[in-house]
Structure formats: C-alpha cells, structure tokens
C-alpha cells in the first residue's frame, strides 16, 4: 500500500476506534495515538519526499499510485504528491494534532464530536493526496459536510444559522466545481480524469475554458473566502467550537486556494491569463476589506475571521500574479496563515473557556492573570502582522516581492493597494493586544482565573514552534515549494 493512502486511512481507523471506545479516556487514547501517528507520518513523508528529490527524481508528482475505479468514466483512485501537497499535508497533520489537544476538555457527546472531526480530516488528507479530479472532488465534499453538525451541535452563539449558511454556501461552491469538472473532463476529450494527464494533453478549446475557468475559480474561491462570497466565514468561525475553527480556518480554507491553483489555473491556463484581472480586483478587495472589517469588530473570533478573509485573499491574489515567486509566497502564506490562525483560534477558545466572553470591551489586563496564554497571544499577533522571524513575514514578503515583478501599471497598483493591508493588520492587532492583555483588569471575576493546563500548553507550543521554525528557517520549505511551483507556472504561461 502506498504511504499516501495511509493519510485518509488512519482517520478512518480512528473513527472505528472511537466507535468501539467506551469512555473519555479511551477516546482520548485513540485520538492521541492517531493524531501523533499522522504527525509522525507527515514528517516522514517530508523526509521521503526531499530524499527522492535529492536522488534526482524530476517527475512532477512523486509516490504516485493509481487503480481504476469506475472505468466507464475513467475515474481512478490516483494519488501522488509534489512539494505543494507535501507542505499542505504537513500543515494538516499539525493542525489535527493540536486540534485534538485543544478540545481535550470537550464534555458533551465527545465520541461523536471526534468521529465527525476524524471524517473531516479524512476529507482534508484525501483532497491533498489526490491527483484525480473525481476523487479530489469527493474528498472535498467529505470535508465539508461534517462542518454542519460540528458547528450546529457543538458550536456557540447563533450556531444553527451559521452552520446552515456555511454549509449551503460551500455546497453551492461545490456545485460550481462539479459542473466545472465535468466541463474539463468532457472538454479534454473524456479520456482521463488525471490532472497531470489532462494538463499534458492541453487540448481544452479556449471558448470552453472561458466558461469553466470563472465557474471553477469561484467554486473554490467560496471556500477560499473570495470577496463577495466570504460571508459564511465570519459567522461560521465565530460559532464553531475551537478545534473546528482551527481545522477549518487552518486547513479547510486552504483547500480553496489549492483547488484554484491546481485545477482552475493549471488545467485552464489560457482562460486564466485572460480573465485573471477580474479575480485580481476581487481578491484585492478581499485583502483590504477583510483587514478594515477586522478593525471594527468587537468579538475576538470575528476579528480573527475577518483577518482570515484578508490573509486568504492574499493567497488567491498571489497565485493570480502567475509568477513563481508570488506563487511560492502563496503556498507559504497558506502554511503560515494555517498555523497562526489555528494558534489564534486555539488561544481564543482557551480564553473564552475561562472568561465566557469574547467581547473585547469586557476583557482587559489578562497578561497578569494568565501570562502564558497572553504571551502566546502576542506571538500569534506578531506573526499575523508579519514580524520578521515569524512565518508571516516570510510569506508576505515573498508574495509582494513576486507581485511587484509584473511591471505593468495594473499589477503594480493592486500590489500597492494590497500592501496597505499590512499596516491595517498592525493597527487592529496592536490595538487588540493593548486592549485585552494590558491595562488593569476591570472584571473582578476574571482575577481568579487560572493559566493554561498541560494539554493547552502542548497544543499551543507545537504551533508556536512550527511558526517560528518556518520564520527562522524558511529556505528548505520555500525551496521545496518553489521547485514544484515552477512546472505549474511555466505550464500556465506557455
């Protein structure tokens, strides 16, 4: 069995283990074993992948494997990875691992919660390892539907509304993707669903590309929080339980960017070049609008959700620039945003679990009460605004560097506009930190609160190590990514 197939298989086995486990202890044991196994496997995968590249294997996808599934439609279960997907798998494994610990204190319907959580990770891992349009789409939807119950049952606030809105909007997006996939399949002569093969054939007529490109890009863009289809994101994130917010903002939203890059742009390159300007304008709006919206929010989760809109907008913005520097930056940004937003949501969940409010007007002086959580919050904030040494700087620097390389007025202007988001981010992050962490504590009830417990510390520290690791030693990662981005970009440009 291919090592890649283990990634969706392990969460499936975890579901089985959860099903037969009888108490919380056993549930935790299953989750920790499975999540650690996934993390270990992801690290092993990175090593194997880098080793194979070092051995001089130049194929676009490595570790490939496939078997025929539905012959009449040429549907295969086909797997394979390149540097981009390896990075994404590593990210997912980290988030699943930390998400498990972040929901350690979950007390209602624990078993069901983790079962849906595992199903969600089956979808996420499956999506990143697939190179077949059908299987990729299938895993994509597998990842979407557990969100409804995870938010609806275990969420907070107006959870029913948010869950329904999120599910319907994302499913609407996936309806667009489905018709786009059919368009690509039949447009390319209905001989294969394999992404690399379709790209090599490169035979979809331009007038069909013009139809399917915007449809697929918007379809994936809904999940990537593309303006104006981002409205599910703030509500959804605000209502979701901690681990689900982490996985959703951290990994699931990356499915959107990854899909836009891998399917919409890679398979429909001519239309992508022709129509990219429309989406560049939309993503620029996302970037700036998200940042401004975050400034005026008073709920911690809403602030972070709008900040996610802004940062995920930057991902789509960068891949539309269509040069390898910006695209590498986009993938780095996916990683960096995934890690730091997960850290943010984990910390918010922990603070909320203690104070029972997320309203920043009611919080102040937390630094003295829970120093560990507060320091970590500052680190997350600094990573978010792009402080050198943390992952955000590496990603955004690469993106803007790449975006400015297109030397026509349009690209330069939008880059400058998008750049302002860095400043706005600094405004809301620093104001937020000053407001809730420093000053004197106004609510006497908060004075008795305790700092983080061991499970919370573990979850937070793993994320911070990853963020700092990416920020301090970015080269191995960015080399791995840019090596894989290059063939895709050159395919799009030629």
């Amino acid at each position, binding site marked *: 069995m291919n090592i890649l197939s283990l990634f969706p298989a392990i969460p499936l086995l975890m579901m089985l283990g959860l099903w037969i486990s009888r108490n919380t202890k056993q549930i935790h044991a299953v989750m920790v074993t499975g999540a650690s196994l996934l993390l270990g496997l992801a690290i092993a995968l990175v090593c194997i992948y880098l080793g194979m590249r070092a051995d001089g294997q130049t194929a676009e996808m490595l570790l490939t494997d496939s078997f025929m599934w539905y012959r009449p439609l040429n549907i295969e279960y086909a797997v394979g990875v390149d540097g981009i997907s390896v990075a994404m798998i590593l990210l997912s494994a980290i988030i699943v691992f930390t998400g498990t610990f972040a929901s350690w204190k979950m007390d209602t319907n624990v078993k069901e919660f983790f079962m849906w959580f595992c199903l969600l990770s089956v979808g996420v891992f499956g999506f990143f390892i697939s190179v077949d349009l059908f299987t990729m789409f299938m895993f994509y939807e597998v990842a979407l539907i557990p969100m409804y119950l995870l938010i*609806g049952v275990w969420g907070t606030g107006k959870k029913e509304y948010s869950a329904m809105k999120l599910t*319907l909007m994302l499913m609407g997006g996936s*309806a667009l993707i*489905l*018709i786009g996939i059919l368009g690509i399949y039949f447009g390319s002569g209905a001989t294969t669903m394999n992404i690399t093969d379709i790209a090599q054939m490169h035979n979809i007529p331009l007038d069909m590309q013009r139809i399917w490109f915007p449809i697929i890009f918007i379809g994936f863009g809904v999940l990537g929080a593309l303006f104006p289809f981002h409205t599910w994101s703030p509500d959804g994130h605000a209502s979701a339980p901690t681990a689900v917010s982490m996985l959703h903002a951290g990994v699931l939203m990356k499915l959107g960017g990854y899909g836009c890059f891998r399917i919409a742009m890679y398979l429909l390159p001519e239309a992508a070049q022709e129509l990219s300007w429309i989406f560049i304008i939309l993503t620029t709006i996302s970037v700036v609008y998200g940042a401004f919206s975050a400034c005026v929010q008073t709920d911690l989760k809403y602030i972070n959700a709008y900040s996610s809109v802004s940062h995920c907008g930057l991902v789509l913005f960068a891949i539309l620039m269509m040069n390898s520097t910006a695209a590498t930056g986009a993938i780095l940004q996916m990683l960096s945003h995934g890690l730091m937003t997960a850290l943010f949501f984990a910390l918010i969940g922990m603070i909320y679990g203690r104070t029972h409010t997320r309203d920043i007007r009611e919080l102040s002086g937390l630094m003295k009460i829970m120093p560990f959580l507060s320091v970590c919050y500052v680190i997350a904030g600094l990573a978010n605004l792009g402080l050198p040494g943390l992952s955000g700087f590496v990603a955004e620097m690469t993106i803007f560097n790449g975006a400015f390389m297109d030397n026509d007025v349009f690209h330069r202007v939008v880059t400058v506009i998008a750049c302002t988001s860095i400043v706005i981010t600094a405004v809301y992050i620093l104001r937020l930190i000053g407001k809730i962490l420093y000053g004197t504590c106004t609510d006497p009830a908060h004075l008795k609160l305790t700092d983080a417990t061991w499970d919370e510390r573990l979850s937070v520290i793993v994320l911070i190590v990853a963020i700092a690791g990416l920020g301090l030693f970015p080269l191995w990662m960015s080399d791995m990514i840019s090596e894989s981005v290059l063939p895709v970009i050159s395919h799009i440009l030629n």
Partner: protein
Amino acid sequence: MDFSGIFTYLYTEIALVGVTVAALLYDLIAGKQGRRYFHGFLCTLMLLFIAGTVIPYHKETVEVFGGMYVYSPVGSIVKSILAIGTLIVFLQSESWLRREDTEFKRGEFYVLTLSTLLGMDFMISSGHFMMFFIGLELASVPMACLVAFDKYRHNSAEAGAKYILSALFASGLMLYGISFFYGTAGTLYFDDIVPGIDGSALQIMAFVFFFTGLGFKISLVPFHLWTADTYEGAPTTVTSYLSVVSKAAAAFTLMVILVKVFGPMAEYWQTLLYIVIVLSITIANLFAIRQKNLKRFLAFSSISQAGYIMLAVISGTPYGMTSLVFYVLVYMAANLAAFGVISAVEQNSDGKTGMDDYNGLYKTNPKLAVIMTLALFSLAGIPPFAGFFSKFFIFAAAFEQGFHVLVFIALINTVISLYYYLLVVKAMFINKNDTPVATFRSDWSTRLSLLLCLAGIIVLGLASCIFDGINLYAFGM
C-alpha cells in the same frame, strides 16, 4: 415446435407467480399457529427468489411470443432490484402488519404487493404497447387497494380514492395516445412501429398523451398533484413501496420505450423532458421546504428525485441507462432507509410523523437518527455515500449529451435540497424537545431491513463492480 425454450426467458415472472401462489396458499391453509411464521416464511421465499434471479441467466436480448415479450439482461437486473426493494418493504411491514386491525389482512398485503411487482416485471419486458399497458394496469390497480389498506382510517381511504381516480385518468389518456400511434403507424409492436415514427403533429400529440400516463406513475411535475396526499394517507410501508419500486419500474420502462421506439423523434421528447425536469426538480424542491409532515416531505423529495432520474433518460445513451439503473438502486437504498425509520417511529409512538416530533430523536434513539441522517445525506448526494456517486453519474450522462444548462439547474437544486434535508438532520440532532419520541427497540425484521439499506448506502458507491456489471448490458439509441 418446441416451446419449452421460450419459458426459460420468463424465469423471473414464473418464479414470482410461484411465490405469489405460495403466499396465497399459505394464507388459506395455515392455522392460527402457522400464521405466526407467515412473515418469516414469505421473507425466506423472497430471499430465495432474489438469490435465484439476481444474475441474468441469458446474456443477450431475446424476443419471445412473436415480439410481445422481450427479455433483456438489463431488464432482468432491474427486476431483481425491484424484488430486493420489495423484500425490504416486506421486512419493514412486519411491525405494522402485526397490529390487530391489519393482522387478518396480512396475506392480502403480500399477494397484492407481489401482483403489482409482477405487473411491473411484465411492463419492463414488454415488446408491444398492449403488453405494456396490461403490465402497467396490473401494477396500478392492486396498488390502489394497498394505498387504501387501512380502510377504516379516513386518510388512507381518501388517498386510495385519489390514487385510483388519477391513475385511471392517466391510463385513459395514455390509451388515447397509444391509439393514435396505432392509427399513424399501423402496429403496436415496438420494433415494427419505429419506421412509422416520423414526428408528425399527430404523433407529437399522441406522445404527450402517452407521456402523461408514465409521468403520472413517476410523479413528475405537472402530473404530481396526487403524490403528496397519497403518500401522506397511505400506510407508511405502502408509501415506501410506491415511492421506490413503482417509480423505478416506470422510469426504466420510460427510458426503454423512448430509446427503442421514439428514437426518430428524439429532439421532441428531449425538449419535453427538458421542461419537465426543470419543473419537477425546482417546484418539488420549493414545496418540500415548507412541509411539516415527514411523509409529505419525502413525497416532494421523491418528486425531485424523479426529476434527477429523468436526467439519465434525456441522455438516451447506454451510459445513461447504466446511470439510471444505478441511480434507482441507490435511491432505493436511501429512500427505504428513510421510510423504514419513519415507519419504525410511527409504529412505536402512536403515529408520530410530524417534523417536530423528530426534535431530539438523537437523544432517545441515536441509531435511528444516524440511519436517517445517512439516508438523507445519500439522497442529497453527499460523499462518501452512494447518492453522491449516482448523482455524479447522471449529471455526467446528461452533460455528455450537451445539456450543460440543465445540469447546472439541477446542481443548483441539489443545494436547495440539501437545505431541507438538513432541516430534518437539525431537528434530530440540534433541536430541543420536551416530549421526544421515547426510546424503543424495533423488531428484528425492521432492524434487518435498515441494516440492508445502510449497507447499500455505504457500499454501493464505493464498490464499482455493481456499476460496471450494469454497464455491461446497458443499451441506448
């Protein structure tokens, strides 16, 4: 001349007549003691029947009785799918039939159901319009008795009356249409009539009449008005039979006739179907959102599902036929699971079928709630459940023939349908209820039937061999 070979092509029907007669005799002979094993006896018999007929014996299409009866392997597969559906319905019927007011009519239920099944089998294998019509009527008339089976319950009797009146009207129109075809083409044999089909104005009118009859059986908009009332009034078991088996047979027959007979006027019926599909899917979806009774809700859901099935018909390709048969199979597993849960809850809670009654079902009956959820997910086309695969295949079938906009409309409608399916899920998992349905344990046969459906929902999509097996025998224009 040796006729013995001819009958080997009718093996399904002959075996089915055997089962029916056995049920009739058992009902007649068995004493009080023996009647207790009636259910087990009949289910075993059905199981043997299915085991004996599930794989088509003959691999080629053969016409017997001068072309009146046409054996085709894919038809044989559909027949066994219908038989499996009937077996599941029988398994689910036990808790209802055991009640005092229906116990003495048990035998009638079995015999009537089996006769409708026989009618459908003949309808599927017909090679002549008269044969087809007789099969259709054999499937309709006992069905009306079944719908009105709880005859002392006002709803059921009313539903029966509505059903038989609409069915007769539809049949009348259909016969009228068929008579025009006889007038213009001079024959009613499917094979001989093809050269006479030229798409003249008279034939188009005749086709519309003919289509009305089948559209009624499949309950497509605008011939759907009987559906909601009948589904609500009929005993739940009968409703599930009506919504799955009867619909599947009619849909398959429609495709066979359209492909085989009306191939020359394809552009006309494709236009007609186009409109009917858009109407069926959209209108049924919009009505389903407002329903407060689960049986009515599933009635509208099944109308929209029928619209999706027509997506496979409109393509007219062999691949479309495979998708249709596969869709029907998957739809059967999901819909019977949903109706099985409804029936179990209804029998164990004094007839609760309202959406509000399902609030908090997960707290008291978690297994039923999960089965219902998976069934609804499958109906909505969510992977990894079988409904996703079957929906994808019919979309691909229609897309391949260039119906891009139609597929797009259907896809938008899947999102709407997801909304109302999620409403039920929400009721069961999220909504609070002060007086939830009490915890109960259903009998072995209901549990077995739900297990079968669940296996179908999960396995059918992931195992591609079933789809490939059907694809081997499918034919098209």
